[in-house]
C-alpha cells in the first residue's frame, strides 16, 4: 500500500493556502507585529485576524456556530479537500477519517466559559453555545459533521508534536484498512495565555508566536484509483517518532524509514537555527537544504506538523527538493519526542494504483 498527500490546506497569519506559505518563505515576514505584554518584554506575534475568504462563510451553513479554533481547522480541511478534488458530500468521504493535533486546543473557549459566576444561589453567564466549544476535539468534530466524514476521528493534545503524532496514527489507520483517506494535521488558536510562555530573556524568544491550521488529505493508492483522482502533491513514505536528542532521533528516523540520506534534499526542522543541534543536522544529511521554517511562518505549536508539511510542499520544484526526491519534515513535541514525516516527490503519472 502506498500513501499520497492529495490536498493541503493552511490558515496562517501570512494568508490562506500553500501559495501564501510559499510567498512568505520568499518574503520578509511582514505578517508579524511586535506586542509588549509587559514593559520589559516585546514579543513578535502573528494573528490570523478576520478571515476574509467568502468561501469561509458560504461553504458551511453552520459556520456561525463554529468557534475560532474550529474555524481554522474547518477552513484548512476545506482547502485540502477542494485541492484534492473532493467536494462536500462526496460519497468517498464516508470512508475517510479526521485526525488532528493541537497543543493548547480549546483554551480560548475555556477562558470564555470560565466567566460564569455563582450569585444568589444561581449560575450566571454560563453559555451552552460556548460550552460546546470547550472540547479539544471541536475542530475534528465539526469537520466530520460538515463533510459527513464517518471514519476514525481522533484528536491528540500532545504538545507541539501533536500534528505529526496525528499523522503517525493516521498512517496506522490507513495501512490497516480502517480508512481510505484521512484529513490529518493540526490546529492552534492563539490565546493571550501563550504569552506566559515568553519570558523576558530575549535569547529564549524563539520564533514569532503564531496561530492557524495545517490540514492534509492523505489517501491510499486504492482511494486515488477509486475516485479517479488527479496527481497527488507528494507521496508519504512514512512517519517515525523517537524521544531524546534531535540528532540521534534524526539518524534513527532516517534508518527506520529506510531512506538513503543522499536522496534527501530538504530537512525541515522545528528547531530554530539558533539551536546548536540544528547545525549537526547538516552533517546527518549532507548536501540537503536544512530549513527552520518557523522563523518565517511562526510558531504554530500543535499545528506545526501540518503547516510544516504544507511548507515543504510549497518548496517542492519539478526537480524535487534541491534536486533530490525526498524531504524530511520534523516536529518536536512534549517530553523531548521528535516526530518525522518522509515525503517523496510524486512520480510522473502517479495517481492510480497501477502506475504506483
Amino acid at each position: 500500500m502506498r500513501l499520497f498527500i492529495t490536498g493541503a490546506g493552511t490558515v496562517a497569519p501570512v494568508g490562506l493556502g500553500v501559495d501564501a506559505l510559499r510567498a512568505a518563505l520568499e518574503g520578509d515576514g511582514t505578517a508579524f507585529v511586535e506586542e509588549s505584554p509587559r514593559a520589559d518584554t516585546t514579543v513578535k506575534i502573528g494573528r490570523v485576524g478576520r478571515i476574509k475568504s467568502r468561501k469561509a462563510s458560504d461553504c458551511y451553513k453552520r459556520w456561525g456556530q463554529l468557534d475560532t479554533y474550529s474555524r481554522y481547522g474547518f477552513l484548512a480541511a476545506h482547502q485540502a479537500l477542494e485541492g484534492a478534488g473532493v467536494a462536500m458530500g462526496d460519497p468517498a468521504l464516508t470512508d475517510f477519517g479526521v485526525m488532528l493535533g493541537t497543543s493548547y486546543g480549546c483554551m480560548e473557549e475555556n477562558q470564555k466559559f470560565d466567566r460564569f459566576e455563582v450569585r444568589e444561589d444561581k449560575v450566571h453567564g454560563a453559555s451552552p453555545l460556548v460550552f460546546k466549544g470547550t472540547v479539544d476535539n471541536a475542530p475534528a468534530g465539526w469537520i466530520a459533521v460538515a463533510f459527513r466524514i464517518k471514519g476514525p476521528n481522533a484528536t491528540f493534545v500532545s504538545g507541539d508534536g501533536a500534528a505529526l503524532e496525528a499523522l503517525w496514527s493516521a498512517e496506522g489507520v490507513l495501512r490497516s484498512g480502517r480508512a481510505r483517506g484521512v484529513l490529518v494535521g493540526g490546529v492552534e488558536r492563539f490565546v493571550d495565555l501563550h504569552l506566559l510562555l515568553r519570558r523576558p530573556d530575549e535569547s529564549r524568544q524563539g520564533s514569532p508566536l503564531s496561530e492557524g491550521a495545517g490540514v492534509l488529505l492523505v489517501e491510499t493508492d486504492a482511494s486515488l484509483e477509486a475516485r479517479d483522482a488527479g496527481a497527488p502533491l507528494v507521496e508519504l513514505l512514512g512517519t517515525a517518532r523517537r524521544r531524546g536528542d534531535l540528532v540521534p532521533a534524526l539518524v534513527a528516523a532516517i534508518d527506520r524509514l529506510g531512506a538513503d540520506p543522499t536522496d534527501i534534499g530538504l530537512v525541515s526542522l522545528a528547531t530554530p537555527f539558533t539551536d546548536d543541534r540544528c547545525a549537526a543536522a547538516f552533517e546527518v544529511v549532507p548536501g540537503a537544504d536544512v530549513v527552520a521554517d518557523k522563523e518565517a511562518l511562526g510558531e504554530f505549536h500543535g499545528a506545526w506538523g501540518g503547516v510544516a508539511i504544507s511548507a515543504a510542499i510549497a518548496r517542492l520544484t519539478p526537480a524535487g527538493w534541491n534536486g533530490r526526491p525526498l524531504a524530511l519534515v520534523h516536529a518536536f513535541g512534549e517530553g523531548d519526542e521528535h516526530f518525522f514525516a518522509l515525503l517523496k516527490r510524486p512520480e510522473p503519472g502517479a495517481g492510480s494504483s497501477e502506475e504506483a
Partner: protein
Amino acid sequence: MAGPHPRPRVVVTGIGAVSAAGPDRAAVLGALKAGRSALGPIELFDGTPYGGQLAGEARHLPRNAGEDRALQLLRIATDEVVRDAGWGDAERGPETAVVLGTCQGGIENAKPIHRDYLRRPCPDGDVAEGAEHPRAFAEYRPGAGAAQVAEQIGAGGPRSTVGMVCVSSSVALIHAIDLLRRGEATRIVAGGFESFTQFVFTGFHCIGAMAAGPLRPFDERRDGTVLGEGAVLLALETAEAAEARGATILAELAGGGFAADAFHMTAPDPKGGGLERAIRQAFADAGVGPGDVDYVSAHGTGTVFNDGMESVAFERLFAERAGAGDMPPISGVKSIFGHTLGAAGALDAVACVLAIEHDMLPPTTAHAEPLRDLPWDFVAGPGRDREGLDVLLSTNSAFGGNNSALVVRRWAGR
C-alpha cells in the same frame, strides 16, 4: 490499528483506579460486586445552585492545597498501577510509554489564570515570572498528566495525550495498542483522568444534561447524567514481555475501533451509526464477531439521547442473538461511579478486566424499567457471578460525535 508486520498481542498486567468508590482497584471491585452506588451529595463546592444534584466525588481524597486535584488523583493511581503490575527498575526507561486521555485535565488550576489574564494578559510587575502562574499554567496543559506519570514511573518512551472528551481514555487505550503493535514501546501506562470541577459541572448543568436524581442507564426514567471523577490506569505490555518477566496477565486488549457519527456536535446520531462502525472495527481488529461477545460494558450515561442511541446500535449489531433470545448482558457502571469523562473509557475497560478476573458481571444500579421495554439483561442489582466470560466489549461515545469500542478478552496464552 495493525501495522505491516506480524503484530504483538497486548495484555493487561496491572490496574490503578481512584474513583468515587475509593482509592484503589479493590474499591472498584467492591462497588461492582455489591452493586453499591458511590454517588452522593457534592462536598467539594456548594451544589445548591445546581439543584443539589448527586456526584461521583472522590470524597476520600485528601484536600492537598498545593496539588492540583486531577494530578493528585493521577499520582495515586500511578502508584497503584505500577505496584499492581509488579514493575520495578527494569521496567523504567525508553521502552516504557505513557498514553493518557483527559477532557479538562487541570482546568481547576486555570481559573485564577483565566480570571487574571482575561483582560490583561500579563500584568506589569513581572507577575508571570512569579511562581504561581507559570506552575498553574504548566499543570493546565493537557499533557501535564502524562508528563507527571512519565516522571513518576521513569518512562522514557513516547508520551501521548488524547483530548476527546468522553472517549479520551478509550481512544488512549487504542492508541497504546497501536504503539505496542508498531514496536514503539514494550509497556505502557495507559488510561485517563478527570477531576470533579465546578467548570465542567456548570457546563453540563447549562446544557441540561444533569440528572435530578440517580444516574439510571437504559431505564425509561433516565433523565440525565451524574458527573464523577477519577484516575484509571492500566499497565499494558506485549504478551511476550509480560511472559518473559513472569507477570500475571489479567486480560488481553484484543482490539479497538473508533468512528465518527458525522451527525451533530453534541447530540448522538439517533441511529447509532458511528457506534456501530466503531464496534465493527473493534471486532475486525480483534478477530471476533457479535456471536462471541459475552458481556457489554456500555457507555450508559443515563441521558435520554445517549442510551437511546446505544440501544439502537446494539439492537442492530446483535439482531440475530436478540431474535434468538440470546442477547449478551449489558450494563452501565456509571450508575455506580458517575460519568468520569476523560477517565470513563478506562474505567469501563477496567470493569471488563475485573469481570474476567473475578467471574462476575458488572451491574447497573438504579435500574428497574428497561428502556423501550427491551427484554435484555441489564444486570440490575448487585454484580452477578458468571463464569465463562471470555470476550467482553466496552463502548463509549462523546461530544463531537465520537465513538469508540474495545474488545477485552480472557488471556488463554499464546
